[in-house]
């Protein structure tokens, strides 16, 4: 299973689905598809609690080309035997994100590239599930969290919402709190 999460895709440009570049000399990030991946293979997936777009693709695989010429292209190709693991392509054209490993998947990041300009930091990542994604604010502080699970992506909310749910025995939030090593004061 392949999920694309974070930004809306534009299906009008043929093979180019998304691109971001924050300055002429900055890295250009692209998400592309092979011509045999049709529009209707991208099934929109609604994430409860937020309006962040996500798409699900079956029978698809991902390849990427990361060049020294400041260009990163991630390609979606049709595959009869895709990888058994769920793979996420995470996109952001605001202030970027960090990937936090899940306890059961210590090295989830296959690729993570950014294009930093004066006011924005776009990013693209290829990540294996399960993992957590931490979207960032302009000053680099955390904005909110997603759980990139094997079955689907989930919105966890802000840091405080995650902490509150962790104290209410939410297993996923507890794992995130533990993995992120947040300093929680206690008596």
């Amino acid at each position, binding site marked *: 299973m392949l999920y694309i999460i974070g930004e809306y895709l534009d299906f009008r440009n043929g*093979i*180019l689905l998304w691109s971001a570049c924050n300055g002429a000399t900055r890295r250009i990030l*692209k998400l*592309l*598809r*092979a*011509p*045999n991946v049709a529009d209707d293979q991208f099934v929109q997936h609604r994430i409860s609690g937020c309006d962040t777009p996500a798409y699900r693709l079956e029978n698809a*695989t*991902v*390849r*990427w*080309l*990361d060049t020294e010429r400041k260009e990163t*292209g991630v*390609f979606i*190709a*049709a595959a009869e035997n895709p*990888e058994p*693991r769920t*793979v996420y392509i995470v996109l952001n054209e605001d202030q970027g994100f960090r990937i936090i490993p899940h306890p059961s998947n210590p090295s989830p990041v*296959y*690729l993570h590239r950014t294009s930093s300009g004066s006011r924005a930091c776009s990013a693209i990542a*290829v990540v*294996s599930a399960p993992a957590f994604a931490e979207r960032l604010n302009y000053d680099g502080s955390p904005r909110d969290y997603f759980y990139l699970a094997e079955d689907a992506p989930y919105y966890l909310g802000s840091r405080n919402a995650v902490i509150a749910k962790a104290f209410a025995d939410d297993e996923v939030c507890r794992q995130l709190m533990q993995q992120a090593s947040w300093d929680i004061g206690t008596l």
Partner: protein
Amino acid sequence: MSWIYSYHSHTLRHTPPVVIIAGDELKLDNKEGVIWEGYNRKNCRRILVYRTPGITPDMFERYTIEGTNKPFYVIRRVKPRWTRLGDYETSVFLVPNDGSTHNHTTYMWVGRGPFTPIPCGGHKDTIKINDRTFIDRKCYQMCLATGAVWICYDELVYELCWDDYESFNRAVKLVGTRDEIIARALTGDKDCQKILQGLNITLQTP
């Protein structure tokens, strides 16, 4: 031609007569007959393309590669001769066809480099010359080849077609952008896979 032989002390070699020069504008009115020159500064290779006195400017038919503003010129009843002077100079001379038997179209791709010529396969020794002059970020390059050859320059891939093109204006064509080539290769397109191989592009997988 004797002065050429004595100056370069090299043997001039022979190739087929129909010549197509693509990639850059030619200076057909140059008085010394240099229709294209790639040169950066002293101690750098100088690359020259000459038209010899028998080849007149009206013999150059100008076309544009479809989908681009890149020109190419078709010159009939000519053949190229070339010589390389060590690391200093590469010269190609367009000379009138002397009526000898020639079978295939010869291409020259000239212009800003670096570009990568990739033989389309099936034919050995298709690339006769592939020289560039490189200083800082400025590069000129010339490739002399018989078809079919792909020229990969910047983000685009062009094809110098095999002899079976329908008409001269289809002899040089745009294959696509590098991204399009990669996308088509992922669908199993053998030509595009061969181009990626020629460019040493290996896609990474999860």
